[in-house]
């Protein structure tokens, strides 16, 4: 029993053979994850800022965007971009389709989280800043947003981790990331060890990210 477990899940021969492939997959996964984090959080912050300007022509589309992309499963969005796009003349690689769909998902959540942060900054902060002659946008940018971002960090790190993990979805659109390479290796070797390797590879990437998020939450917590 134990020998079978080892043979199938922790087979060193197989592991050694497919290590380079899993390693390449890790690089693609990291590349995707970094792009998604920057695009998603940046876009989310920008949208929250624009929404806070209280121009209806902007804030309505932002709210609708955020609601739709929080509701849609990212896999559905990804498959639409990748498989349905070509029918209307939009062709993109699986990598780009994954980057876009997950960035939009993260942006939608991040916008809502930043927005909640903006709302939770007290009215007194607005009044103090405006009373010194700062304009609305200046007050938002210099006084309110820095505090809102700080309040947003714990929920934001959780959501960021949740969305970046979904880069595994890219395996369905032919991106050679960790899971896709592991599945291919598993098929060729008729052995499930590559899947164990994939799980370990994800842990190697995401455990430090989780630890980093803890550090950030601690670092930016208000000292009272």
């Amino acid at each position, binding site marked *: 029993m134990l020998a079978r477990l080892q043979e199938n899940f922790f087979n060193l021969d197989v592991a050694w053979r497919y290590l380079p492939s899993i390693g390449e997959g890790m690089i693609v996964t990291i590349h995707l994850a970094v792009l998604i984090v920057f695009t998603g959080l940046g876009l989310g912050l920008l949208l929250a800022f624009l929404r806070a300007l209280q121009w209806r022509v902007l804030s309505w589309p932002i709210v609708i965007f955020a609601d739709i992309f929080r509701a849609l499963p990212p896999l559905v969005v990804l498959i639409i971009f990748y498989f349905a796009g070509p029918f209307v003349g939009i062709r993109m690689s699986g990598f780009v389709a994954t980057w876009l769909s997950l960035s939009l998902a993260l942006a939608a959540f991040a916008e809502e989280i930043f927005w909640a942060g903006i709302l939770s900054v007290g009215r*007194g902060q607005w009044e103090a800043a405006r009373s010194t002659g700062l304009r609305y946008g200046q007050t938002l940018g210099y*006084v309110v947003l820095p505090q809102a971002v700080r309040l947003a960090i714990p929920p934001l790190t959780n959501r960021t981790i949740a969305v970046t993990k979904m880069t595994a979805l890219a395996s369905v659109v032919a991106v050679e990331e960790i899971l896709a390479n592991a599945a291919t290796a598993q098929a060729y070797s008729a052995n499930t060890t590559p899947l164990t390797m994939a799980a370990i590879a994800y842990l190697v990437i995401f455990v430090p990210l989780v630890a980093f998020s803890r550090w950030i939450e601690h670092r930016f917590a*208000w000292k009272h």
Partner: protein
Amino acid sequence: MSTTSEPILRVEGLHKSFAGVEVLHGVDLAVAPQELVFIIGPSGSGKSTLLRCCNRLEEPTSGRIVVDGTDITARSTDINVVRRGIGMVFQSFNLYPHMSALGNVTLALTKVLGKSRAEATEIGRAALDRVGLLFKEAAFPNELSGGQQQRVAIARALALEPKVMLFDEPTSALDPELVGSVLAVMRDMRLSGMTMIVVSHEMRFARDAADRVVFMDAGRIVEEGPPEQIFTRPQHQRTSTFLEAVGGH
């Protein structure tokens, strides 16, 4: 103080309603340069609302407010320019928690007045020195006592060299032993000739430092006069009832 000179702040027929409920029923008030006007009255009498209309943190429903010759309620007036000349100090301090004391004081200097960082730092440090807190310039608000926070807030307003300072219950959120330090700064400002309008329950300070005391009740100015008159010979029953209740006699 001379009250014959042109008032630096004039409120005329000010009405203010919140959601259809009128809280100010036509207030007239003129404040002379360098005057310290103290507004007292029961809670809900409209004194804070009156003060907050003076820099349009509250939008007047009708009436006119003229500050240093500018009708601040006029459509053509850029309120952000007007506010540079009107400092405000709040009950809850409202310091920016993510900035140091100096950062709090210099923000508007650089972003509103367009001063260079070096110049803003120089002005900001001078303002902190005036409130006795230069040694705390690097401290963040959560590292300061309530009294110190309020003095930084005063420095933040002072740094812009306002023509008028509005104080909205500046000591109400403070522990009793910290009130004195804030009042001392306000007394010092009065001596240096700042025009001040103060909403507060510090009756002793009103007696000592005010040029004029205004008693408000139910959205109207009931009576006004020099402190010794209001506190010792009030003309209206409502005034004496209020003063008895707060022990101001």
